[in-house]
C-alpha cells in the first residue's frame, strides 16, 4: 500500500529565493506528523506546496497515489486535504456559522454537511455559544478553534496545521493540542502539523521532521526525537 502523502524531492523558489531545496517527507494514513524547524526553514512552504498555493519547481507531490504538484488549490481541497493557515485567517466579517459553512464549500450534500457541522460544534462547544457572532470579534483562541473547525467541515482525510499555537495563551494551547489529538484518534484524520512549539508538537505526533533552511536534517519517531540530544539542544531547551 502506498503512503497517503508523498512529498518527494521538492524544490521551491519565490522569485529567486529558494525556500525548499529538495525536501522529501511522507505520511501514512492515520498518522500525525510534525514539522519543526527554525524560522524560514521552509515549513510553511511545504504546506503551501501541498495545497497548491505555491508551485514547486521540481519534485513530485502525491496524495493517495495521485500527483497534485502545481494543482489548483480548489482541486486539492476537493480531494480531501484541508489546511489551517499561518495566522488563522478567519473571514472577519462573517459569522461563525458562515465561516464554518465556508469550510464545506467543496461539498454539496446538505444533510451530510449539517451532520459534520453538528459534530464540529459538539467538539468545540464555545463555537456554539458564539454561533452568530462576527468572527473578527472572537478572541484569538476562539478564532483558532473556529479555523480548525472550519477545516474539519471539509471532511478532510488529511489536515494541515500551520502553527496553531502562535499567539495563543498557554492554557488554550493545551486545549488545542488536545483537540488535535482527538481529531486524529476519533475521526481518523491524518495530521501534518507545523509548530514552533516543538515540545507540544513532538508530544502529540507519531513522527517528526526537523528542517533547517530548506532541508530535512533529522527525521524519526517523535518519542525518540524528544530525547535526541540534537533536537533537545536546538528545539526544546532546558526545563522551564
Amino acid at each position, binding site marked *: 500500500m502506498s503512503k497517503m502523502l508523498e512529498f518527494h524531492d521538492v524544490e521551491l523558489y519565490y522569485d529567486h529565493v529558494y525556500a525548499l531545496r529538495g525536501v522529501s517527507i511522507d505520511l501514512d494514513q492515520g498518522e500525525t506528523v510534525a514539522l519543526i524547524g527554525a524560522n524560514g526553514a521552509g515549513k510553511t512552504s511545504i504546506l503551501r506546496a501541498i495545497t497548491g498555493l505555491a508551485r514547486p519547481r521540481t519534485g513530485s507531490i502525491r496524495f493517495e497515489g495521485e500527483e497534485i504538484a502545481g494543482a489548483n488549490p480548489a482541486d486539492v*481541497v476537493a480531494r480531501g486535504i*484541508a489546511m489551517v493557515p499561518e495566522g488563522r485567517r*478567519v*473571514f*472577519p466579517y462573517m459569522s461563525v456559522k458562515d465561516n464554518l459553512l*465556508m469550510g464545506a*464549500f467543496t461539498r454539496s450534500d446538505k444533510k451530510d454537511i449539517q451532520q459534520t457541522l453538528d459534530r464540529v460544534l459538539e467538539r468545540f462547544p464555545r463555537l456554539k455559544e458564539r454561533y452568530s457572532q462576527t468572527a473578527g470579534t472572537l478572541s484569538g483562541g476562539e478564532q483558532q478553534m473556529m479555523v480548525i473547525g*472550519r477545516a474539519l467541515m471539509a471532511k478532510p482525510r488529511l489536515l494541515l496545521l500551520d502553527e496553531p499555537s502562535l499567539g495563543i495563551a498557554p492554557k488554550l494551547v493545551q486545549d488545542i493540542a488536545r483537540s488535535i489529538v482527538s481529531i486524529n484518534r476519533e475521526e481518523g484524520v491524518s495530521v501534518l502539523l507545523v509548530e514552533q512549539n516543538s515540545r507540544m508538537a513532538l508530544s502529540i505526533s507519531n513522527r517528526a521532521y526537523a528542517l533547517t533552511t530548506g532541508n530535512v536534517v533529522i527525521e524519526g519517531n517523535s518519542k525518540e526525537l524528544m530525547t535526541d540530544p540534537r533536537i533537545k539542544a536546538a528545539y526544546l531547551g532546558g526545563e522551564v
Partner: protein
Amino acid sequence: MEQIIANGIYLGAQYAMIALGLTLIFALMNVLNFAHGQMYVLGGFVTYTIYGQLGLPYVVALLASCVTLAVLGALIEKFLFGPVIRRSSREESTMLLAAGLAFLLDAVILLLFGEKQRGVPKIVDGVLNWDFRIIMPYDRILICLLAILSIVAFISFMQFTKTGRALRALAQDRVAAQLMGVNVERYSMIGFALGAMLAGLVGGLLVTITGINLGMGGPTSIKAFMMVMIGGAGVISGAIAGGIILGFMEAIGLAVLSQYGDITYLLIFVSLMIFLAIRPQGLMGKPWG
C-alpha cells in the same frame, strides 16, 4: 414633507443599486471601477434597443441588458483586470485600466448607439396624486419597487447562497477562500460579472424614466463613488445606506435650498467632506460584510 420622503426613497433606491455594483467589484478586486457609469449607460442602451427599437417586451429587454453586462463584466475581468492585478506591483495600477476602460466604453457606445439622448415608451401611464402631498408617476413607483426588490434579492443572494458566501469570503481573505476550495479566478469573474450586471440592471430600469445618453456615465460613477464613501467602501449595507442618504440629501436639499440653487450641490459636497473628515471610514467602514 411626504413628497420629500417619497423622492428620497425613490432616489435612494436607485442610487443604492448603482452603489452596490461598484462596491461589490471594489470589495472583491480592490478595483475602483471608473467605468461603472459607462456600464450603466450600456445597460440603458441595450434595453432601449430591444424594448424601444425592436419592440420586444420590456422584461426581455431588461434581462438582455443584465445578461449582456454580466458577460461583458466577466470578459473584462478575465482578460483585463485579472492579468493586470496579477502582474502589477501596485494595486492602484488598475485605476489606469479602469479609466482606459471608461474611455473605451464611451467610444464603443458612441459608435454603436450614437450621441443622441434616447428614450423608451412609458411602461405604465398615469400619476399618483395623493392630495398634492405626494405626486409621483406610477412608472417611478414601479421602478422604485423593482429596485428595492432587486436589492433585497441581491442581499439574500449574498447572504444565504453558497456562491454569495464564497464571494464574501473572497472579499475578506483571498488565500483563505482558496483554501476552502473556492476557485479564485472563477469567482472573481462571477463577482465582477455580478457587479456589472447590477449596473446593467439599473440602466435598464432607469431608461424608462430618464432615458439614456452617452453623457450619463461619468457623472453616475462619481455619484456612486460618493455613496460608497458615505457608507464605507466594500460593504453591502454601506452602499445601501450611502445611496439612501445621498438620495435623501438631494431630495431635502433641493426642497429646502431651492432658492439658493447654485449652492445646493456645493453644500452636499462640502457636508460630505466634513462628514468624512470626522468619520474617515464612512458609516460602516469595514471590509465586505
